[in-house]
């Protein structure tokens, strides 16, 4: 469905050295898939999305959607797109903006009203439908952006930082909406700094850094290599854990931290603790598997704005 073949993008500013924003990206995204895109600031996520939408042309390699150059595909079929910065004319009213976007998306005239109403209800915009865009809060503007992306049943959805500015309730609601959007003939791309979100939603996560594809992770399948730190809550027999593993750091109320241990060692400790009659309530890595992959892939400079 979507193919990046050796795709690269080099910017040539007038008075500065060329900048390679994306380098030799080869990637295929198939129908039915939810693909996460992660990376520190400046990793090339926005460039990848701009190439996919045809807003930029690759300087090397090619990008194809159903065999077509992206711009031609978009002009024929459209893509449901939520940009990182939601830019809507501030003078428009929320409902009017959605009616305009529905028209541009090719929603039949007789269905525009119903689609707009559905999007307004689904994204909780009813109290704000007559407000001007400039009067919307950041979260409401983000929901308006998401609503316009969902007005038509597109086969490709691209969501760039979709939960940026959303409160925890709407973040959860967004996850439910995306889960409901999964369809065998639809590809969904989600670019996010929120690794937990990608871990929950994505089938695969592409980790980019400095314009290069560093790693592709399948959350829940690919166990990260190396050592990790785990937080363990013991409901009964609190004294057993330090007895089995003297290095366990007590955090109070039956909570312990096992720092820098291999997965095998963790399992051995847990088995011994349970065998001694303790009741373990939860074991959670302090960093998710995806986060550990991310750290391994991009190093300690992650998020430093390179």
């Amino acid at each position, binding site marked *: 469905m979507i193919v990046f073949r050796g795709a690269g993008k080099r910017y040539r500013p007038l008075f500065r050295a060329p900048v390679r924003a994306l380098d030799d990206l080869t990637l295929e995204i198939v129908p039915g898939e939810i693909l996460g895109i992660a990376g520190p600031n400046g990793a090339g996520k926005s460039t990848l999305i*701009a190439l996919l*939408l*045809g*807003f*930029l*042309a690759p300087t090397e390699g090619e990008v194809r959607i159903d065999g077509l150059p992206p711009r031609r595909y*978009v*002009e*024929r*079929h*459209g*893509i*449901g*797109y939520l*940009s990182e*910065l939601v*830019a*809507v*004319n501030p*003078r428009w009213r929320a409902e009017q903006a959605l009616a*305009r*976007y529905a*028209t*541009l*998306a*090719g929603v039949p*005239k007789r269905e525009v009203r119903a689609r707009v109403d559905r999007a307004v209800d689904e994204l909780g915009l009813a109290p704000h439908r007559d407000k001007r865009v400039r009067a919307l809060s950041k979260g409401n503007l983000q929901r308006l*952006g998401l609503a*316009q*992306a969902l007005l038509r049943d597109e086969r490709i959805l*691209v969501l760039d930082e979709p939960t940026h500015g959303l409160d925890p309730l709407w973040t959860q609601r967004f996850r439910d909406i995306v889960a409901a959007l999964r369809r065998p003939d639809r590809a969904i791309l989600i670019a996010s700094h929120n690794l937990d979100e990608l871990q929950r939603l994505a089938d695969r996560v592409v980790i980019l850094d400095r314009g290069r594809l560093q790693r592709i992770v399948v959350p829940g399948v690919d166990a990260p290599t190396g050592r990790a730190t785990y937080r363990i809550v013991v409901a009964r027999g609190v004294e057993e854990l330090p007895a089995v593993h003297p290095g366990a750091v007590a955090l109070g109320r039956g909570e312990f931290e096992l720092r820098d241990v291999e997965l095998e060692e963790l399992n051995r400790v847990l088995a011994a603790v349970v065998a001694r009659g303790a009741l373990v309530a939860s074991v959670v890595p302090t960093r998710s598997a995806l986060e550990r992959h991310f750290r391994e892939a991009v190093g300690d400079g992650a998020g430093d704005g390179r």
Partner: protein
Amino acid sequence: MSARILARYAPWQARDYLFERGIPVLVICTLFGWLTYGAMAGMRGELGPEALRQLAVALWRSIVPQVALFGTILALNGIVATDLRQGYFRFHFAKPVSAPAYYAQSYAINGLSLGVITLLFFHVLARLLGIPTPIWAAGYVLLYFVALGGIIFLASSASVSWLGRFDWLVASALWAGGVVTHELALRGQRWARLVAPALPPSWRTDDVFQALVAGVPPPTEPLVHLLAYGAVCFLLGVIVLRYRPLAA
């Protein structure tokens, strides 16, 4: 698909013109009208009917080119560049819509709307001044729109980054440059003779205007030159939009 969608979107573009550009044009027109009507009203007791009519025509001649110039600049200033700079293009052109077709339609709608607004203004002013509505004046505004508008459209389509704020200024400077260079070419400046054909034939608007005021058909050569120059610039703008990256 794109053409049908754009046809359905046309009323929204007309509405955008009216609220964002048409109202400022009406304000400027009203100001010109008020000054003209004030000048006429002050002379009513002092001049006879024929002298008053001549004064009305003279005042009329002075405001039509001003309305055409400001109307055209206001109709097209930032037509593409503002959307690119502000990022509005992102949602628009993720939809099954062609950017060149979208802005070409916007250009046409803004031109037609400017024609309608100025025709209404000229009609109201003519009634106030007690003279027949000079429909040719709206035609002149449209000619001006095509001739100068083409180069504003091109400047806006080709603009990058912060330069997009000044598309109208670049186009207006070229428009004025056309007059100056033509004058210098007439005085024998060699470089001006070389450069003048590439610059807008703004100096030819006067030939057309004088003919329209006199009530005779405008001379073909200046008319064709102005229209062709504007049309070529407009088409170049469309081609630039086809091939330029929309994102920075």
